[in-house]
């Protein structure tokens, strides 16, 4: 691989675009393909398959074996609420290889002072989600405790097929949430996908511990879905 190819790969990964490389194992000659651009050459079909599966592998059958590597955008966490739990989650997520964005219209909470370099949008969720579209590679974590802020993005996350949707609050709080979402026209099967109470049950107490429990639950949802082909999990 040439340095220029590595730089191109890194730029694309930064921009959350999928990248594949095809390397001739005998010569080391590499081709770089970026999703959305034209894919040409004898490995085109395999490259497209790799974009879909996310699985690297060796391709035999050509003049010489090639290795196809694929870099899919890292899953992203969108957190609704710039609260104490979110501060801990903002520190943990990058270590686990997850992108994280925080949305909170309350500008007193969503300050760089509290969140450093974390991506922070001090806007209402419906406005902010226009810049950060939810998709199947996104986990949504709603932790404001305020229905005015949490409900709209929760519905949006269920509609978008986010691989994880979690909401903070007691069982009683959640019962109220279920009623409100039902009134908004969300069906019961979708509502059942919301993880509430949020986080794996590890007896978490402090905001940092709750953040660990949430992150663990997100990783479980991410890694188990491939095996089971089922996004709903156990909660």
């Amino acid at each position, binding site marked *: 691989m040439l340095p220029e190819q590595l730089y191109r790969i890194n730029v694309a990964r930064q921009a959350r675009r999928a990248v594949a490389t095809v390397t001739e194992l005998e010569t*080391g000659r590499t081709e770089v393909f970026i999703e959305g651009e034209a894919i040409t050459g004898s490995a085109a079909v395999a490259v497209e398959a790799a974009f879909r599966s996310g699985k690297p592998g060796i391709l035999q059958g050509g003049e010489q074996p090639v290795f196809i590597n694929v870099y899919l955008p890292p899953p992203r966490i969108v957190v609704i609420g710039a609260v104490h739990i979110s501060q801990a989650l903002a520190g943990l997520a990058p270590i686990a290889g997850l992108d994280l964005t925080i949305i909170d219209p309350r500008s007193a909470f969503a300050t760089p002072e509290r969140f450093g370099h974390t991506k922070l949008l001090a806007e209402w969720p419906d406005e902010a989600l226009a810049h950060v579209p939810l998709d199947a590679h996104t986990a949504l974590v709603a932790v404001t405790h305020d229905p005015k802020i949490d409900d709209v993005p929760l519905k949006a996350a269920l509609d978008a097929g986010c691989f994880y949707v979690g909401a903070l609050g007691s069982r009683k709080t959640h019962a109220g949430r279920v009623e409100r979402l039902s009134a908004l026209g969300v069906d019961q099967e979708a509502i059942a996908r919301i993880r509430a109470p949020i986080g794996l049950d590890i007896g978490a107490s402090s905001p940092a511990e709750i953040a660990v429990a949430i992150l663990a639950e997100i990783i479980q949802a991410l890694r188990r879905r491939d095996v089971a082909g089922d996004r709903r999990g156990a909660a």
Partner: protein
Amino acid sequence: MSSQPNFTDPLTTAEHWLREGRSVAIATVVETWGSAPRPAGSHLVIDADGNFEGSVSGGCVEGAVVGEAAEVIATGAPRLLEFGVADETAWRVGLSCGGRIRVYVERLG
């Protein structure tokens, strides 16, 4: 947060090193059989002084890969390495988990 250790990904590290003018090799798991610690596609990047970042196993064969990388950086010729079960009596480098992996080592540029 300044006390937090770096946890950057290997390809970003490789880019920083190249831009500093260092020679860099990149090792990639290209095939695995059985129980392998890191999946295909995982990277370890190495510079000419033996500094490294990332992993191709659980720490079992990185030492050997770093050694091979020095040769690859010197000659520019890529190598395909294979590691199987560790043989403790022969002091052979390998994987204690029982799997087998192939690691491709190439120089960047």
